[in-house]
């Protein structure tokens, strides 16, 4: 079984964020990037599944925006069989639809039967990759999943554990092929020593692909971006529950946050 893991790089929020002059976009030239956290979990879950199913392989793929090489090599060092970098020359990240169109081509070509994608990415403004990809492939989609088990003679069923608000977890069965949106793997993403990553960088290659990525504006038009201001003080409140609630409500009103 080939398991596809699309990974995205998102703006690293530990760095101070700057905007372009028009205030409608992040200045991506000045930003640094990091692998999307839930994609890292999707990769881990895929590797766990691959360990359990003899003959299976994990294929990671990324659209080349935001220095993806480091994460692709790290994925190879962790045990992915192949890493693919999709050429892209846009000045902002691909939309969910664009990325889904690219990844769907690879999933079909490589005859993948399962896609594990991160359930969300903080840079997604106009839709989520998982459902968009499932739509492209016409496969079922389940998101916000913690843990995936495959069963059936041909591993044609996946049991997933889906989170709902209020600490409710549902166990669902979905037929494979499917796209699964992972919010957390069964275990934290594995650590791989830097020496192994460096070794993989010398011994393995990332495969470059040029694919048809549809152009077209996002469905969402950004009116304005604002970088949140950070406060420099903390106000300690005291009192019983009712007093505290009234005080908080008053502060929210004074700050213009509540009517």
């Amino acid at each position: 079984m080939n398991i596809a893991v699309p990974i995205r790089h998102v703006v690293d929020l530990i760095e101070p964020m700057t905007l372009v002059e028009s205030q409608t976009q992040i200045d991506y030239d000045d930003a640094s990037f990091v692998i999307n956290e839930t994609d890292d979990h999707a990769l881990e879950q895929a590797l766990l599944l691959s360990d359990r199913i003899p003959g299976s392989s994990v294929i990671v793929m990324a659209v080349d925006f935001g220095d993806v090489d480091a994460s692709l090599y790290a994925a190879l060092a962790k045990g992915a069989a192949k890493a693919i970098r999709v050429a892209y020359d846009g000045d902002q990240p691909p939309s969910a639809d664009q990325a889904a169109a690219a990844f769907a081509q690879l999933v079909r070509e490589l005859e993948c039967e399962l896609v594990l994608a991160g359930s969300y990415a903080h840079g997604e403004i106009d839709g989520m990759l998982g459902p968009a990809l499932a739509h492209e492939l016409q496969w079922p989609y389940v998101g916000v999943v913690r843990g995936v088990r495959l069963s059936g003679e041909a591993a044609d069923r996946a049991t997933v554990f889906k989170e709902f608000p209020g600490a409710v977890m549902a166990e669902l069965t979905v037929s494979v092929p499917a796209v699964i949106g992972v919010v957390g793997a069964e275990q934290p993403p594995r650590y791989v020593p830097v020496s192994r990553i460096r070794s993989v960088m010398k011994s393995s290659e990332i495969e470059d692909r040029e694919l048809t990525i549809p152009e077209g504006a996002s469905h969402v038009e950004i009116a304005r971006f604002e970088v949140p201001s950070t406060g420099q003080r903390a106000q300690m409140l005291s009192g019983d529950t009712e007093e505290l609630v009234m005080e908080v409500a008053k502060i929210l009103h004074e700050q213009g946050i509540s009517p």
Partner: protein
Amino acid sequence: MSTQTGSIDDLAVLQDLPLPPSRQTFLHCMQCGSCTGSCPLGPAMEYPPRQLILQARSGKLRKVMESPSLWMCVGCYVCSLRCPRSIELTDALWPALRDRAMQEGIQPPGELQEAFHNIHLYGNSLGKSPRRRTRWAEGLDVPVRDLSRDPSPTDVLWIVGDYPSFYPRNQVVARQFAQILTALEVDWAIVGNKERTLGDCERLYGEEGLFESLVEYHRDLLEELQFNLIVTLDPHGYRALRHYYPRWGVHFPVQHAANFLADRLDQLKPLLTKPIERTITYHDNCCAGRRYGNFDAPRDLLRAIPGVELVEMDHHRETALCCGGGGGGMWLDSHIAAHGGPRLSDQRVREAATAQADILAVSCPFELSRFEDSAKVTGFEDQIQVRDIVELLAQSMDLTSGE
């Protein structure tokens, strides 16, 4: 002993550990137990040092590598320095086993993983933005020359270190050290936001690849600059530059800040005008202290401060108790506590209290926060203040922290 070729239990694997032949002396261990008897965390380890070597030589390397003991050494050097066979447990064997364990897919404790990850991504263990590394110097009342902007020659290159750069409690020490250097008319500079951790603790905790990447980074950065000496507040950074970087062909002269200042005591002493009427005890850090015998310079500095009465804890100089933060221990408190290990910094603060000290003086960035936290936990917060030697010198020089 397993006869399966290539198995992790194979003795040949042990001999294949990334140790140069001169360091294969662990095969000569005579099982005297001096190491285990000396190890401050030995009683909590499933495999204390003697047992670790015994199990490894018996072909049970996997047991050792899968044991929590592998991640409990805090790099205090007591075992290494007392070993009658001069086995380099701290510098060589432990790191090699950890490196091998990680290569085999054995996961280090979560806190340590996060530190490695932060260093790999951001060049510092705290996971802070590299672009904010020089914020400690904002508003300082002395000029700070940044060689990343102005690469003209300097006499002293000060590698500030992660904690003095980012951690608020330590930033005070950074600011005051800058003021002291300026007061001494030292020609000094920093590398600004291009600075990264020197990597000593990462090497001790088995991340040889990460360490190597840091050596390469610093080689490329520093060979382009012109300076005569590197000074660092961090004894671990000092050890890395003095002991390990040369193995990769990277040679830079380096001094720990305490030695640098002690060498200039003639200039410094007239500036120490304000008395500090306190009883002070000095904690010898393991790296610059026990490892390299730098015991006198910090004491000379403290004695030079008028009004100071210097007392010694029961364990001092070669026998000093470790604070528990070195060699990666800074990121292993949870792991060590979860496996029954004592908090070494708590023990040390109790010793300081027994010595009737008002101030516990330190010269390592890890120790400030570790001992201050322990002072609160052990209930000695009102009796004992923790101060870096730099802070005490600055106080006697009547320097503010430039706020």
